[in-house]
């Protein structure tokens, strides 16, 4: 364990980032167990408890009885602490699943394009190029306008935004690897194309993509937050971090900072720690790096 940590990074900041990320992930996973309230269950909310400042103890007549609002409450009477935990859950789900889907899809297409070349390559790369020439947020906006709201929908939209990026990275890796003699040897040994693609080409194209995708989780999360902030993507009854920030925004002027502030902190913490950890991952996965 100690050794693993040393291999990861000797620097305090990197270790802190890893620790923060672990805490956030565990908190998100355990949200239903540790949060005082289910912020998505309207029966547990009391509008009379709306916009309470942090630390208020309110004994209202909700189903759960009186409680302490450590981080305050939003305009619907949601406990901010619970809302943040559930929001983290949504952010991570959306970020991870859209990235994994996009990775699997983009990687497969990229490998096929790079390995076979010809019209497959042309077709895949044209589509990817067109898609990458539009800003991601624009594509996501258009897609969500068509698809409507919901977690599944936003995952779809973020998947569509990301895959082209992986396809392009995978293709350029495959183009380099394909020319190497181990692929020639595998062909000569009469191995099936699928085996060559997945047992030989894929493992050698994957490492750069893993780092990219770790970083990409962070950007997917921030994109989701942006979309929610703009009021599309997730329904108002199930606020994610972005939506919480957006709700709180209108009350900032009157001094009710906490509705925006605490979710904002959580979001920044999540994104920064993912970025730092991914950055270390790049070096850890490339032992030959130190040599050059």
């Amino acid at each position, binding site marked *: 364990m100690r050794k693993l940590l040393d291999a990861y990074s000797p620097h305090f900041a990197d270790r802190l980032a890893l620790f923060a990320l672990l805490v956030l992930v565990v908190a998100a996973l355990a949200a239903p167990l540790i949060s005082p309230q289910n912020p998505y269950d309207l029966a547990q909310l009391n509008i009379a408890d709306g916009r309470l400042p942090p630390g208020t103890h309110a004994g209202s007549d909700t189903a759960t009885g009186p409680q302490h609002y450590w981080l305050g409450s939003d305009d619907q009477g949601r406990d901010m602490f619970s809302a943040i935990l559930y929001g983290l859950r949504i952010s991570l789900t959306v970020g991870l699943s859209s990235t994994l889907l996009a990775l699997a899809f983009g990687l497969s297409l990229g490998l096929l394009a790079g390995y076979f070349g010809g019209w497959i390559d042309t077709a895949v790369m044209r589509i990817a190029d067109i898609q990458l020439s539009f800003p991601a947020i624009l594509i996501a906006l258009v897609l969500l306008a068509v698809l409507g709201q919901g977690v599944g929908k936003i995952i779809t939209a973020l998947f569509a935004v990301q895959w082209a990026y992986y396809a392009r990275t995978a293709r350029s890796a495959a183009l*380099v690897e394909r*020319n190497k003699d181990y692929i020639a040897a595998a062909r000569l040994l009469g191995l099936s194309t699928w085996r060559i693609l997945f047992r030989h080409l894929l493992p050698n194209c994957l490492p750069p993509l893993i780092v990219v995708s770790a970083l990409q989780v962070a950007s997917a999360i921030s994109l989701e937050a942006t979309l929610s902030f703009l009021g599309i993507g997730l329904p108002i009854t199930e606020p994610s971090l972005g939506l919480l920030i957006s709700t709180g925004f209108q009350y900032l002027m009157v001094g009710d900072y906490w509705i925006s502030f605490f979710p904002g902190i959580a979001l920044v913490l999540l994104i920064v720690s993912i970025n730092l950890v991914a950055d270390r991952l790049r070096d850890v996965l490339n*032992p*030959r790096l*130190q*040599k050059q």
Partner: protein
Amino acid sequence: MTEPLPVLDVSHLSTHFATAKGVVRAVDDVSLRVQSGQILGLVGESGSGKSMTGFSILGLVDPPGKVVAGNVLFKGQNLLTMDPERLRQLRGDRIAMIFQDPMMTLNPVLRIETQMVETLQAHQSISRSLARTRAIEALADVGIPSPAERLSAYPHQFSGGMRQRVAIAIALLNRPDLVIADEPTTALDVTIQGQILALVQRLCRERQTSLIWITHDLSVIAGLADQVAVMYAGRIVESGPVQSVLAAPLHPYTEGLLGAIPALHERGEPLRAIPGATPSLASLPTGCAFADRCPRAFAQCSVPLGETEIAGDAGPRRTRCWLHSPVPAPMPTIQR
């Protein structure tokens, strides 16, 4: 008579790899010395640690490998304890290595022009166009035809031997004082090899460059080197002036090696390979590692031994063999 300060003085160097199957002793108690302008030939069994010796000298051993003992003095400075940044500066400038695998030098996604110009500009402040001219000259020196056109090609567009020559050209770009050449001519035909050997001979003569030439080609050693060292299973088993070692080897391994050369055989008859297999470097015997395969092994061979110095016609020779140990060791109690 005091010898001048050697350019490279390696003493008791050991490099080990910790693996799941035990400690691999890739380099074990190796001592070498190269004078200015001198050429040392390093030969030995495949997998005996020749390349690893070169990597250890330059501080290029990848983890889990580690230099665990010894000193490496380059013009009096210890490279093993040197600040990594300064060592990096020395490498590619004053000390260069020609890697066995040319793709360790060449980046597959860069044109060789980029790589050569960058190598020059990293250690000298010269203009791009001058660097380009120097690069073209360097390619012509190693016998690459149409060097100006080839400059813009990628490594995979070269033949195996041409890649090797490009790597040689890059290593020699900054005119280093010490070159460690790891099997640099394995893919070259005799004429081109002659061209390369002429080039390095000129460097040694005119610029007093010192050279460690790792190779399996004993005829190149015979024609090129001043001194030769023979490695087996991580250790140097014999070293000395080329003429004495090749004419009258002291160690039975060297003898076996010289006996396996095809030219000494009738066409088509089986070649006399040394019988037996190389011992695993993770479980070497305590005594001589060659004893199992040695036609002249005797009981003494299982006792650990150091190097013995023997006077020779052309200069001192050293070997690691009980046959040539001046002190008769006490009789061992266990029979082999």
